[in-house]
């Protein structure tokens, strides 16, 4: 989880927004695996905003098909 948190930070710092969105999706997924649903939802929401803004249709689809994000 530390690595994905670092990846989000590094990609955001670099201005690599699409890559940051991808790292957020993976971090959210990892957080869910650890039962941290609330934190996962918050990160997934950020990823969804970014992915939508950038037109990352595939990522948006992935996010919208993650059932626990919508709960």
């Amino acid at each position: 989880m530390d690595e994905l948190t670092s990846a989000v930070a590094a990609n955001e710092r670099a201005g690599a927004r699409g890559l940051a969105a991808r790292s957020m999706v993976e971090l959210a997924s990892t957080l869910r695996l650890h039962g941290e649903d609330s934190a996962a939802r918050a990160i997934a929401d950020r990823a969804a905003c970014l992915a939508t803004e950038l037109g990352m249709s595939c990522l948006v689809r992935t996010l919208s098909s993650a059932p626990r994000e919508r709960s």
Partner: protein
Amino acid sequence: MGALARALLARRSARTGPDQLRVRCKDGARTAEAAGKTDDLELQLEAARLHVVDVLESGDLAAAAEAEQQAEDLVGRLGRPLYFCYPPMWRAMHALAVGDYGAADPLIERFRSDARRANYGAVDQVWLAQRMRLQLDTDGAESVLPFAEHWAEQLPQSWSSAPALLHALEGRQEESRRHFAVSAADDFAHVPRTLSWAYVMAQLAEVAALLADADSARALRRHLAPWAHQAIVVSSGALYLGSGAHYLGLCLRTPR
């Protein structure tokens, strides 16, 4: 000054690993400065091109953009068609990195047309790497699967990771595993140690995670560990894959 720049460039070729990035960045600025004091534009461009790669690997896209601009100016001053494909390649890489996909699309095609005109050797492979990234980030990458399959057949150790990833993303696990096995043999020892090695290993990390292949993920984690604190860059700046920590994180998450 030309001799100093050449000596530093020669030294750089022996310092390609991730553990040497800081030294490369420091030397790169010195090399560019020394080359800039000569009237050898090709020497200046070589120094600038390699500096672009080092700055990208350090994860500083803003500094890389400045280095790219300097290199592009040199391409213009040199006026040799052989180098004309670099500016659209870097601009496409940059557009993909910052998520400006509308800009990336025509630049990728512009790169291919300029590179073909100049008989640039790896044109179709660079084009595929960029096009695949664009499609993965936007509409889906099924359209590039035939190209990925073609290169996996031509250069299996370098390209099997691409169809392995595309099949895995679509849930075709058997096809993905077949391609993945080509690269995974003998602890990934046959993945060529070129400037694209980390790119291939990063793709394989994504595949291992998608296939929930714990043994491979563990091996890939070991191989990719030195990239934890830097970005993964393909070749001469053809593609920026972002933080290496992302791919390590995928490996660590894969169930043991």
